[in-house]
């Protein structure tokens, strides 16, 4: 039972980061109709930028954290303007390949600047674990779950109440109608990429604090696919639920199945689930079915 709870907790922690990354992913898909294969690299860049500030420039963690958010927003703007804007109206495959190309370029920058070696964040969160009944949780876990919840909550409020958020939802719903209501679709697209980069960057900072930082953090982006498909590609609550479910599922298979079948099961089970969902319920738990007309 203790083992189960322990797995549950670590699953929820990883799942909350999945949810954050998935949020950005869903946002881009909803607003611009683009599937972003570079989401994992956004996360990696966030982790490295913050690490560079903390470890190389010796900026206090929280200031570095805020600065990282600023940097990621700016990077999001640049990427949207240079790479994504010319692609409006191109076929899906071109846009998928463009984001894949983008991920290669980002990986290249990180490798050239920081090299391929593993890096570790300097100790910032206290190492003293917290005991919750039988379960032991390290403090960084609590912080990352807390921040994930904070950001998810903030963005939910943002979409519900702020005028920019409402504009984004309008564009996601019907671009032409939004345009004729005087909403700048370009601005909304730019905002979607900024927010996506921002939340992925935040996820990266916490993931970097939990694990080591290296280029393979980028694979995290591919693992978000099962989460968003499970939740429904265009649903923000879906991203949160899907992220948590996939995180827990991964931890459980890692804990129970890996010792029996051998390593790597943890990585593949979410994708098996993904295929099953696509077969049974392609629009996920909360997604809107597409109605196609000739």
């Amino acid at each position, binding site marked *: 039972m203790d083992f189960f709870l322990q797995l549950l907790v670590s699953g929820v922690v990883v799942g909350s980061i999945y949810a954050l990354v998935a949020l950005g992913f869903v946002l881009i898909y909803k607003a611009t109709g683009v599937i972003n294969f570079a989401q994992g690299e956004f996360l990696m860049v966030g982790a490295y930028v913050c690490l560079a500030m903390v470890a190389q420039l010796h900026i206090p963690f929280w200031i570095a954290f805020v600065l990282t958010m600023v940097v990621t927003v700016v990077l999001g703007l640049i990427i949207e303007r240079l790479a994504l804007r010319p692609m409006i109206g191109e076929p899906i*495959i071109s846009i998928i390949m463009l984001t894949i*190309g983008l991920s290669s370029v980002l990986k290249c920058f990180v490798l050239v600047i920081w090299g391929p070696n593993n890096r570790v964040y300097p100790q910032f969160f206290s190492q003293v674990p917290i005991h919750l009944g039988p379960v032991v949780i390290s403090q960084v876990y609590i912080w990352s779950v807390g921040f994930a919840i904070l950001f998810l909550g903030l963005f939910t409020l943002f979409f519900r109440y702020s005028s920019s958020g409402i504009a984004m939802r309008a564009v996601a719903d019907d671009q032409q109608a939004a345009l004729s209501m005087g909403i700048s679709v370009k601005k909304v697209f730019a905002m979607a990429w900024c927010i996506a980069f921002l939340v992925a960057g935040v996820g990266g900072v916490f993931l970097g604090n939990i694990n080591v930082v290296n280029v393979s953090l980028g694979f995290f982006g591919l693992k978000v696919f099962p989460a968003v498909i499970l939740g429904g590609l265009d649903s923000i609550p879906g991203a949160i639920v899907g992220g948590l479910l996939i995180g827990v599922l991964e931890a459980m298979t890692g804990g129970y199945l890996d010792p029996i079948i051998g390593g*790597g099961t943890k990585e593949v089970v979410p*994708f098996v689930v993904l295929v099953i969902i696509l*077969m049974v319920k392609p629009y996920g738990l909360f997604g809107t079915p597409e109605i196609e007309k*000739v």
Partner: protein
Amino acid sequence: MSAHICGDYKTSYKEDMVLFQTFFSKFWLIAFLIFLCIIPHFLDNYVLYVCNMIGIAIIGALGLNILTGFTGQISLGHGAFLGIGAYASAYLVMDLGIPFFIAMPCAGLITAMFGMVFGIPSLRLKGLYLAIATLAAQFIIEYLMVHVEPVTNGVLGKMVDFPSIMGFTFDTDLKYFYLIGTVAILATIMSKNIVRTRSGRAFIAIRDQYISAEVMGVNLFKYKLLAFAFSSFLAGIAGSLWAHYVTIITPEHFTIGVSIEYLAMIIIGGMGSIIGSIFGAVFMVLLPEVLRGLSGTLSGEFPMIVNIFAAIKEGVFGLIIIIFLVYEPDGMAHRWQMIKAYWKLWPFSY
């Protein structure tokens, strides 16, 4: 009567579908093939190795272009299908002792079967969803390659012999060049012809507007599966040739990166174009080799360039994809058409 025909004066569909539109295209093609037969004797082993890799890439890219370029079904699992072909061929030859020239088509057929299984979701899934489903297929097949150890020997890798046909062993780069060249030419002819048949037209109809295609009597399920089968068949053949050429295969050779590389080939070459697949394959195989050569020459002045070579390769790869997508979305095949059209009317291009 020396008027030069500069437009297309075709009065029947049959005329329009002819493989060789003019005498010159046939002439140059035959000249090129003769050149291909002679030139390898003057090349050193490294250049031959690159040529062989290009040949294998052409076969794989043709397959992916039929599926993605002509039928419009995005596949992110082509690398894994290559792997299935490689392992199937290796298993048939090494463990079951079947001769290579039977094992290679069998490997293609086995891969085609796998391709059809993973193509089944394509009936319900379109575009993005299908891309993600094939991504899942890629990871699941990769997992199987590591874990079905009796067949694949897991992460340790499987040793494969050079192929031999009737006691003749293809054990040098030169001999292998002719084997790969023959298969690549056959694959090109096959693809070129399949595009001209009813199936090929059905593929294109599905890509352009699948609901209209269905209304016009195209059986979506049948033709989508056929496209998956044909595409994975060629992937399997390419995988088989690759396995017997490099003689040791591990699951690391067939990762998502390979799938992406093949997608890049058809995008850079030109989607929905046979010659585009060839251009793309040549380009994508030459690119890392050229970069390696460059970094070799530059390493004298900048010693650190060797350390970041992998990173630069990755970055240039991404950058080229982006540049092509933004500035030349129809690929090199389109540019080739433009050049040909220019010379057709030269010097009176207006």
